[in-house]
């Protein structure tokens, strides 16, 4: 957003046609066209003191404490879906990756890769949604970049975001800290995002009222950290769903897990869509849920803090960590049997985030 230090302002410049205009190669070329795109589209949407510095970098004041940083590239298709779009998703995804360390997110960066011919109206919609998500989260986008690739070499728009945050003193949250006896909690209904995206796929479209759960979780997580500072692990179950997240943590910590199918919150509509498509909700992506693992003595306080927050009102304790050198995740089925819950294999769905 700040490639050109001196915005060009010589007499009259015809404004960008945000209704019918298209992205052109020159919009990434470093010249006037790019400067205009920044001045008329990005700058007004994301406006904050850092961007107003209009430099190629943001000058930040070093915060107290340990710093975390996370990056995430967003390539979702379709770009707009029930409950969100690639813009809001790009903010939420990275904020959540920062927040699941227990950190308070401070700043975001945004890198756009645009395809030649992409409608400016759609770009504006995405940028506005992204700016709104960042503002709602209270985290400014402090620096950015735009590139344009030739038609056919991209898919409309790809967005990379990087987030920086700071972890409060005394908080030690990491995927390798799960211990036998710990309780496993989730913050709400699983699989909403994946099913919402799937419902729009061209060869699959079915009508559903399910919306993506895309949301910034840092405030919920702050409340959780406050209620249970001794919490061991936090992770957002995005691609690969709950099953893959639990397997990752089990392997990192060298422990096993047992979860109870009856206690895992899944909406009936999501369950039905998965049934129809031959998918397992445990493997379907989420963009606004968090999995927490904490010592047994703080589980009740943690659950209460989650239930008290709007983004955690359907939270539940779904199982326990056990000792198991094979690091298997097992599930007691509603049916009364027990089975393994393995890693996802291959891709259940392409390009969901």
């Amino acid at each position, binding site marked *: 957003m700040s490639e050109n230090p001196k915005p060009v302002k010589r007499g009259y410049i015809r404004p960008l046609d945000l209704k019918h205009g298209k992205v052109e190669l020159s919009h990434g070329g470093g010249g006037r066209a790019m400067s205009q795109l920044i001045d008329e589209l990005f700058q007004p949407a994301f406006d904050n003191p850092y961007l107003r510095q209009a430099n190629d970098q943001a000058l930040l004041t070093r915060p107290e404490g340990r710093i975390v940083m996370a990056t995430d590239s967003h390539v979702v298709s379709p770009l707009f879906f029930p409950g969100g779009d690639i813009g809001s998703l790009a903010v939420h995804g990275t904020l959540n990756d920062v927040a699941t360390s227990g950190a308070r997110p401070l700043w975001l960066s945004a890198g756009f890769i645009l395809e030649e011919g992409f409608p400016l109206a759609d770009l504006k919609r995405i940028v506005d949604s992204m700016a709104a998500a960042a503002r709602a989260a209270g985290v400014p986008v402090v620096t950015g970049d735009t590139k344009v690739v030739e038609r056919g070499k991209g898919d409309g728009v790809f967005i990379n975001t990087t987030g920086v945050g700071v972890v409060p003193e005394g908080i030690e949250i990491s995927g390798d800290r799960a211990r036998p006896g710990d309780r496993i909690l989730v913050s709400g209904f699983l699989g909403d995002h994946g099913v919402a995206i799937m419902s729009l796929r061209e060869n699959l479209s079915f009508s559903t009222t399910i919306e993506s759960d895309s949301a910034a979780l840092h405030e919920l997580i702050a409340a959780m950290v406050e209620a249970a500072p001794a919490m061991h692990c936090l992770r957002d179950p995005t691609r690969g769903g709950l099953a893959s997240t639990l397997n990752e943590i089990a392997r990192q910590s060298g422990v096993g897990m047992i979860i109870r199918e009856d206690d895992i919150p899944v909406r009936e509509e999501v369950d039905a869509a998965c049934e129809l498509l031959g998918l397992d909700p445990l493997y379907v992506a989420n963009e606004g849920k968090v999995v927490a693992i904490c010592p047994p003595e703080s589980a009740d306080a943690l659950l209460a803090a989650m239930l008290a927050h709007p983004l955690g009102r359907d939270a539940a304790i779904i199982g326990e960590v056990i000792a198991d050198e094979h690091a298997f995740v097992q599930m007691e089925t509603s049916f009364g*049997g027990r089975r393994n819950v*393995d890693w996802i294999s291959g891709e259940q769905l392409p390009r969901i985030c």
Partner: protein
Amino acid sequence: MKYVDEFRDGKVARTLAKTIADEVRPDRRYHLMEFCGGHTHAISRYGLRDLLPSEIHFIHGPGCPVCVLPIGRIDSAIELARDHGVILCSYGDTMRVPASGRTSLLRAKAEGADIRMVYSSADALKIARENPDREVVFFAIGFETTTPPTAVALRQARTEGLKNFSVFANHVLTPSAIQNILESPEVRELGTIPLDGFIGPSHVSTIIGSQPYEFFAEEFQKPVVIAGFEPLDVLQSVLMLVRQLNEGRAEVENQFSRAVTREGNLKAQGLVAEVFELRERFEWRGLGEVPYSALRIREAYRDFDAEVRFDLPYRSVPDHKACDCGAILRGVKQPQDCKVFGTVCTPDNPLGSCMVSAEGACAAYYTYGQFTKDSAVAEAS
């Protein structure tokens, strides 16, 4: 979920399981082959083995359409996409089935072949309509359940005069496979596979009805219980088989009466008969060449037969030497008997077809049952 939860009720399951445990005779074993991958999947996913007494043994049959597809057929599909430049439309499960030379449809796609995953034959037709300057081939696979939709697509293509659409037909027949297993030396003479009865196909039977199984019950004296794919369906069918075996009966019974009749779906059968005819022979993975076990497109629809249009010869290719899929599909071996199970061969990197589809015995064991395997190993050592 209405109409589904009723068949997954844990309380009913425990009552049924107790009845089965009460009725099995401790002096004998019950070796039951579930023909369909759908049943294999249900048994593993719901942990049915945990509920059943040790006298009940499941033998996993070859009813997984992806698993029985021989390498030569996948090679031909890849040849169509790579050498003939067609848009090849395939069901998702087929994408990762290993073909010759460490390739697969998925790898061929990554190398530039135009291979598209579809959910139905209608999607393939749509792609053909939208790409009039390209040849579009539907890679049709599956048992009797997926055959009628392929027949519909062929009829539709002929009605529309869709010149750029054709079908690479690989539809196979359930009764031929069951007969092949019953007549195999392992079952008939050597007795290496004890086989007491069949949990009969669910969806296939909605099309072909229960009648075709009557021959097996009579001729081979093996009871058949047609069962739905829900876990309670499977448990109930186990109880029905235990009762038949205890009483010395060998009949065809229909547990899945909410969907299966004796005659089956006559309209679908008529449609299939109009478009397809029997092949003299067809190679199955695991079973080898089985006479009259598959369908080919009739003369009247010859213009839409990809094998004719592209003059595709069939080349048989042996399976990987270390892969036991053949023996597993015939029920001779269990997945964990295979040397490469879970090591060289995993769902992410399948060596054999049984590790590919969720319905494959190896994939079901690997995905849902590692802890069972490990505890079994621990007990044995």
